[in-house]
């Protein structure tokens, strides 16, 4: 659980930026707060700010959110065995709190669904509290990039990925994942690079592993 504190700090910094930008984009305090409390998905909420015009493009907002968050399907699939023995109710309740940050902490360790839900709740409180703070304080916030804080989440991910490194056999699938994500990002927005890059890298890795079995 200790590992999730630095991540919560970084989530708070970005939540505060979201709150401030949401007010600047014309959302009311209530709209910003309800978005963070019900959607609880940073990249999708940031993308929605760019679409927040009058009249509100409701369908476009929902479809954009769906596309950006499709990667959650892969995240959930990868950790489904952590809910072995859980009731459907507890499982689907815990999954509300599934975000990139606590998924990364869970998947790289042997942590169970309880860790996912608990750390998710910490991040949820940080995200909603930060949205409120940012929306109220607004432009007076310091820029997180000034302290390198924008690198906190990437740094944690790199550290976690290091623990999943299995030597040279890991290189090809990871390179395929990174390169295809960067290529996709040139033409498609939002969640597509993560979704397609993740699919490409894991498929190459799985194909090689199965090919080795047969040989």
């Amino acid at each position, binding site marked *: 659980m200790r590992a999730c504190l630095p991540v919560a700090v970084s989530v708070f910094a970005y939540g505060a930026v979201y709150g401030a930008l949401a007010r600047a984009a014309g959302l009311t305090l209530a709209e910003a707060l309800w978005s963070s409390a019900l959607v609880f998905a940073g990249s999708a909420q940031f993308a929605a700010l760019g679409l927040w015009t009058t009249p509100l493009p409701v369908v476009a907002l929902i479809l954009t959110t769906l596309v950006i968050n499709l990667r959650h399907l892969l995240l959930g699939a990868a950790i489904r065995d952590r809910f072995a023995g859980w009731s459907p109710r507890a499982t689907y309740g815990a999954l509300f709190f599934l975000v990139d940050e606590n998924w990364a902490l869970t998947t790289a360790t042997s942590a169970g669904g309880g860790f996912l839900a608990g750390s998710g709740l910490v991040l949820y409180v940080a995200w909603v509290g930060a949205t409120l703070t940012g929306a109220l304080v607004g432009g007076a916030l310091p820029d997180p990039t000034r302290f390198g804080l924008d690198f906190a989440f990437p740094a944690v991910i*790199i550290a976690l*990925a290091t623990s999943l490194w299995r030597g040279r056999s890991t290189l090809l699938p990871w390179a395929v994942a990174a390169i295809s994500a960067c290529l996709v990002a040139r033409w498609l927005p939002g969640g597509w690079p993560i979704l397609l890059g993740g699919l490409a890298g894991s498929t190459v890795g799985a194909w090689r592993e199965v090919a080795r079995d047969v040989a």
Partner: protein
Amino acid sequence: MWPEPRALAAILGMALATYATRAGGVWLLGRTRPSRLLTVWLNQLPGAILVVLVAPAVLAAGFAGVIAGACTALVAARTRNIALALVAGVVALWVMRRIG
């Protein structure tokens, strides 16, 4: 503290779409016994997704980001300590930006 109806519809729709993606992965696989190929593929997923989550952020930070990323990976591999690796990465990026 209620948003006007159109905004409320948008937020509720966004919330439902997001939750469907969060629950969908477990739901789709919950009723099947995964084949050998699917199991192998699922084991490959975490690493690949971690890489694509981080690659754009590192590249967006440019040369400083690549150096900071390398420092983070090095400290993580040596110490197996996430907090220490995090500090190394953030400090490296901060230093690179100051001198860059």
